[in-house]
């Protein structure tokens, strides 16, 4: 089952003097349950591509279909709602809400979606348990380590049962032990719950774990390898 199709996507930035072709005719398809890494050097266009997949940026040309819905065709308010229901985000610098506890951060989206309290509590606890933070439920981000914060971010991304999770260099700020724990957790969630993960990274450890590695250079896909 296809969760995501990228059809001939281009992104051209027109700054005053130079025209930058950040993404140049990318075609990709992702099946449900993939654990894929998009890799490439800085400036290769992977973050731009990821932003377009996540509906944070619009392609200059081409189509991005999530579950057969073209993101470019959605009005901004519909798009925000679509993102909330279908796409989970994990950011490089965690980006948790600093005034809320781990639990509150995780249930934030469920709250926006008006889940009832009982269901919400169950899901939150289940997710925090899955990321190994069941004993830090009431800690604020400032009391958690970087690795723990990123695990909360993963739990938050999964809260509303999205079609796939986009993670933009999720391990870039973590030490190797935290990275390993985080990757194990994500792999486990991927295998057990069938959640699709798409990373952008240039971390070798992530590439090693990924079952599909897509390499991008100068805005083009130069290789797309699947491991078994």
């Amino acid at each position, binding site marked *: 089952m296809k969760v995501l199709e990228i059809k001939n996507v281009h992104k051209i930035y027109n700054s005053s003097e130079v025209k930058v072709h950040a993404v140049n005719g990318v075609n990709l398809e992702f099946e449900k349950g993939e654990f894929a890494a998009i890799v490439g050097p800085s400036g290769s266009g992977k973050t731009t591509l990821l*932003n377009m997949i996540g509906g*944070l940026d619009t392609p200059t040309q081409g189509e991005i279909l999530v579950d057969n819905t073209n993101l470019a065709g959605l009005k901004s308010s519909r798009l*925000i*709602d679509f993102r909330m229901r279908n796409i989970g985000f994990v*950011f490089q610098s965690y*980006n948790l809400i600093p*005034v809320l506890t781990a639990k509150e951060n995780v249930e934030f989206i469920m709250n*926006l979606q008006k889940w009832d309290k009982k269901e919400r509590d169950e899901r939150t606890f289940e997710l925090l348990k899955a990321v190994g933070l069941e004993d830090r439920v009431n800690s604020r981000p400032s009391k958690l380590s970087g690795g723990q914060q990123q695990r909360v971010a993963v739990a938050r991304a999964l809260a*509303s049962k999205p079609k796939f999770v986009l993670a933009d260099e999720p391990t870039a700020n973590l030490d190797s032990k935290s990275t390993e724990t985080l990757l194990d957790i994500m792999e486990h969630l991927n295998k057990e719950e069938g959640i699709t993960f798409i990373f952008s990274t240039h971390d070798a450890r992530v590439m090693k774990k990924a079952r599909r590695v897509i390499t991008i250079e100068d805005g083009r896909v130069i290789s797309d390898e699947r491991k078994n």
Partner: protein
Amino acid sequence: MIWKTAWKNVWRNKVRSLVVIISVTIGIFGGVFAVAIMNGAIAQRVDAALNQEISHIHINDKAFRDNYDIQLTIPDGEQILKEIEEMPGVSAVAPRIQITGMASTATKSAGVEIIGIDPEREKKVLNLYDTTIPGTGDFFESESSSLTAYIGQELAKELNIIRYIVDEDVLAALTGKEVPGEVLNKLTPFVGIRFKNEKAFKKALKGSLTLKEQRNFGKSIRDAAWSFRSRSKMTLTFLDKTQMQTGAVFRIAGIYDVRNSMFEMSQVFVKNEDLIPLTGMAPGEFHQLVVRIDDLEATEEITAALKDKLPDLEVMDWKEIQPDLAMMTDMVQRFYAFFMVIILAALAFGIVNTMLMVVLERTKELGMLTAIGMNKKRVFSMIMLESVFLSLVGGVLGMIISQVLIGITARNGINFSNYQEGLEALGYTSHIYPAISMPFFITVTVLIILTGILSSIYPALKALKLDPAEALRTD
């Protein structure tokens, strides 16, 4: 969730939020307390006017107030008086003769309004008698073989009926009032001198006391040296019904102190029965009826009823008698609103500034919130709620402090004795009891919330314009 997050966000930068909250608190407190003082002063003024000076409704001939023509009495006055007394809502009615004339003593004279009253009835429409200065008389209570008059403190000073004498008793009294010895020493040269009036005494004090001593003890000294020669006399002259000049000597039957110089200067009260033979009026003839009603709220209704009943006479309620009072009450309402709007506008700019900083600081976080699915309406509400909370916390604190302080000062009043003369010249007392009305309180609360909402609009719009992808890239 949005409410909770907004509330927590307020306390994120405690120092900054506290600075805003404190400035809102001080602004609101300053505004509300200043309004309470003005309000209190006006309420006291209205209260004094209604209870000591004019009462609620006056009835007289339609042309009487043009030049107080002695001929323009109320026809069948006694009958009308009885009928009005029977009306529901009316608590008392008093008849008055009113003529203009001249009051004079051996050295001074002044133009006055001579008001002939029935003391027993008059006491039921006004409690002016309550303001009699102790030791000066008893508002026509005691029998007297001679004619008697009840006059104001200012007129008594003007006519040199009040004099200033420093003697051993005065010095002893001042020692009791904690006036220091050195000041008393400076007063000893005055012993035995009789100062004819306040002005002369003040001048003498000015010559020997320092400015600070005058300010601190001047009033106590003047009050102690104040002396009234009991049964002082003055002559009242006026025109009788045949336009012939007439007059008589009246003994002072009391001096009243209403802290309204103009009123004290001009209103001289005498008994109707004393005035009638002098004016050539018939017994039972009078110019005016003063009506007191049970409930001030019913003023308009009862005035209208009286106007219907007495189409040939002029019926005026207190707002018509003293339009300045009514105007004052109306005008200050508008003034308060204006005053509060200025304060709130100043606060609004402070809040806008803070909230702009908040949006700028949280660019990345707001970008993240939009990315994970918080829509514009919610981002807008969150920023708006934060500023409403900021202004509300400050506002509520300001209101509580004002309320507490108003409560404390209302018990004993605030003494503006430095401005006593000026205030009393305008009819205001210098001892003010701050007061605030519930509707004003509610209006201010609503305005504070509105300020919070209005001042959040611009920063919140700024937050909406953030592009999530761009916002996420900022460090």
